């Protein structure tokens, strides 16, 4: 009896009812996200219609009416009467739009350089690798020399030879380091020290071991690079996407350090430095890039002695670097302002010097906050490099224009532009996705939850 009573009086909730059918599943999602009210419904339908129109046109122009094989633009026109794309031309001009006038038989050098750079940067994505900052610094500081040695070729000259050898040594060390991190779980310096039996010696001796090892690698690299026999490819015939990437790559790599220096200069307490940095930033930020490029390419040679006469590409790169630095300086300044005063004061109270305070306390916080803006500036710079076409550098855009003036491809004009747009979209989209990834991983703790 008691059992029954107990089971009758015990609190037993009824199983909860299923949610109303129109709030779950596909229908619920639709109601919640698409048809919340009459205005919402109209907006949704309008939106879907717009997407439909765009897709319809894209499919008709780009696929249904497109011509995939033809030898001249005239052939394309004869087939589709200009109502669809002529992708055959992109095929014919692909090489030109990628490498410009770089000789066909030497293009492997550009590809090799690109692969080396990618390999150098891959350790960033490998979680077990230690010392990522050093890896990144080695790539940014020395790859340009290795790259120019490879891309220009010919007689390297002693400076470029040495720098390229240093770069090559570092590159090999980076990958030895990565392999060791994964195989032995130790970094390259640790391994070197223990292998040579110096592990239990004084720390200062470790340095000699590392320098010795680097020296051996450097000599080997010097000898190896000495055996290169590369045909000279002057910068005047570089072009296409390759040129775009060279200009924007150097601009991007130099923008952050220069921008940080300028931003610090602008906040400096020394009036000379402050006024100079402020004037520099405001001057270069307030005029269009095209006028700066114009000045650099046509005016500067007027003021330099004929013997110097630097190549046009060097002038353009300097101009782009200055421009990028001025923009980056303002971004960094925004970040610096966002770091609270307490952080500076605490760092000073700990007795850190100015540079240590900046490098260890302030900058990491400021840069973290500014990741989206920094990457935004990088993307802006990459897009702006298309302006070099106006002063006659054969970047991807100007190569595309040249295609339409070639006797066989007369009038081939829209497709290269679409192709260029697509390439930029892919590059910039990847950058923006990477920035979002960075924001999530290293920006953690500051991001909105």
């Amino acid at each position, binding site marked *: 009896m008691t059992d029954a009573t107990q089971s009758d009086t015990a609190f037993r909730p009824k199983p909860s009812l299923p949610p109303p059918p129109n709030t779950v599943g596909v229908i619920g999602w639709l109601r919640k*996200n698409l048809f919340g009210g009459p205005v919402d419904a109209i907006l949704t339908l309008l*939106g879907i219609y717009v997407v439909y129109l765009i897709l319809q046109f894209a499919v008709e122009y780009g696929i249904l009416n497109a011509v995939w094989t033809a030898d001249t633009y005239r052939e394309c026109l004869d087939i589709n009467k200009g109502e669809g794309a002529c992708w055959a031309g992109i095929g014919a001009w692909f090489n030109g739009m990628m490498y410009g006038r770089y000789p066909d038989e030497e293009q492997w050098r550009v590809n090799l350089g690109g692969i080396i750079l990618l390999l150098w940067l891959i350790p960033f994505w490998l979680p077990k690798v230690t010392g990522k900052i050093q890896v990144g610094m080695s790539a940014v500081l020395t790859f340009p020399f290795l790259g120019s040695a490879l891309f220009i070729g010919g007689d390297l000259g002693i400076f470029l030879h040495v720098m390229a050898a240093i770069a090559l040594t570092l590159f090999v060390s980076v990958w030895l380091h990565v392999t060791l991190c994964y195989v032995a779980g130790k970094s390259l310096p640790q391994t070197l020290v223990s292998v040579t039996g110096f592990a239990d010696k004084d720390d200062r001796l470790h340095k000699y071991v590392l320098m010795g090892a680097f020296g051996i690698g450097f000599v080997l690299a010097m000898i190896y690079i000495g055996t290169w026999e590369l045909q000279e490819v002057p910068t005047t015939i570089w072009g296409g996407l390759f040129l775009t990437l060279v200009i924007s790559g150097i601009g991007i790599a130099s923008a952050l350090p220069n921008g940080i220096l300028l931003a610090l200069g602008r906040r400096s307490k020394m009036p000379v430095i402050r006024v100079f940095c402020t004037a520099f930033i405001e*001057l270069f930020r307030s*005029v*269009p890039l095209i006028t700066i490029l114009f000045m650099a390419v046509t*005016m500067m040679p007027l003021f330099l002695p004929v013997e110097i006469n630097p190549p046009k590409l060097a002038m353009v790169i300097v101009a782009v670097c200055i421009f990028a630095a001025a923009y980056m300086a*303002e971004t960094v300044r925004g970040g610096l302002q966002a770091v609270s005063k307490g952080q500076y004061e605490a760092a000073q109270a700990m007795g850190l010097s100015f540079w240590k305070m900046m490098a260890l306390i302030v900058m990491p916080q400021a840069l973290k906050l500014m990741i989206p803006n920094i990457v935004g500036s990088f993307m802006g710079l990459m897009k*702006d490099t298309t302006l070099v076409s106006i002063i006659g550098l054969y970047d991807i855009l100007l190569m595309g224009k040249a295609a339409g003036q070639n006797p066989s491809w007369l009038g081939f004009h829209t497709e290269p532009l679409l192709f260029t747009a697509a390439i930029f979209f892919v590059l*910039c*989209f990847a950058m923006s996705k990477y920035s979002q990834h960075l924001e999530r991983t290293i920006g953690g703790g500051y991001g909105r939850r």
Partner: protein
Amino acid sequence: MSTGFDFLNSTAGFSIAWSIIDYEAGDTYFHVFLVGIANTLIVSFFAILATTLLGFVVGVMRLSSNFVIAKLASAYVEVMRNVPLLLHILFWFTLSSALPPPKQSLGWLDSFFLNNRGFYVPAPVPGDGFDIVIIMVLLGIVAAYGVTVWATKRQFATGQRFPAFWTGVGLIFGLPLLAFLALGAPLTFDYPALKGFNFQGGADVPRAFCALLFALVLYHTVFMAEAVRAGILSVSHGQTEASYSLGLKPSWTLRLVVIPQAMRAVVPPMISNWMNVVKNSSLAIAIGYPDLVAVFMQTSLNQSGHAIEIVAMVMLFYMTVSLTISAALNYYNKLVQIKER
């Protein structure tokens, strides 16, 4: 090669397709400089205006709960900001070639016409006494300002509110309207009419202007929208809740609590965006809109050969405009920033 600014007084022998200030072939290079400046400023002005308004709309759209709208807005943002502006400008110009030729213009009320040359509207021709209407507008603005000041003072003193905004609107529009009607509507219109190849009379903007404006607005709206979105998200929800619990209406909460705080984060990127609009209008040359760079740094430079002087003048102009914008907005920024004591 001769140097110096003497060439500014010599005759420029070319004509300019469209300008908002009078120009004819035979005027001086200095006049060309002014025409270029006027054309650059007019397109930048409209672009900045539209960018700012549309930027707010798209920024809010990205935060919308409607799936399609939010996705559409973010697709728009991604497509726009990942492709160089020059390509956007060429795209809109090419697209506008689908408009009909002048003889088959899209007309509206027989006074507005759109074709592949441009957009034609009736031009107002002021009659006698129209000056008084304009004076009334100025009077209205002064009176509205006075009313606002008075109303604010009264509210601080007594706590009573006065609908200063609507009174102001009434004054600015009402006074001139009354004067206009009292004077017997002294305004006629010059209608565009098809003559020969194209429309004559009326006022017009060329197709290149429209395409440039479209491209500039659509491109820069993205950056404005991103700034607005970040600004709104930066205002913590606690602020809204606190304001509700104080008894403020939702519209007041938005106007008095959320927007002022959001503007702090919106203004700095908005400054650089406005500056970029002015600078980027220099890409107009690609589609034949006669802006400063096109008429001065291209055509005039080519015909006169004074490269250094011309580029220097162009740079100086952009510097002036950019620094003016940034000075004005920095001043505003100082007003709204949190005061750290």
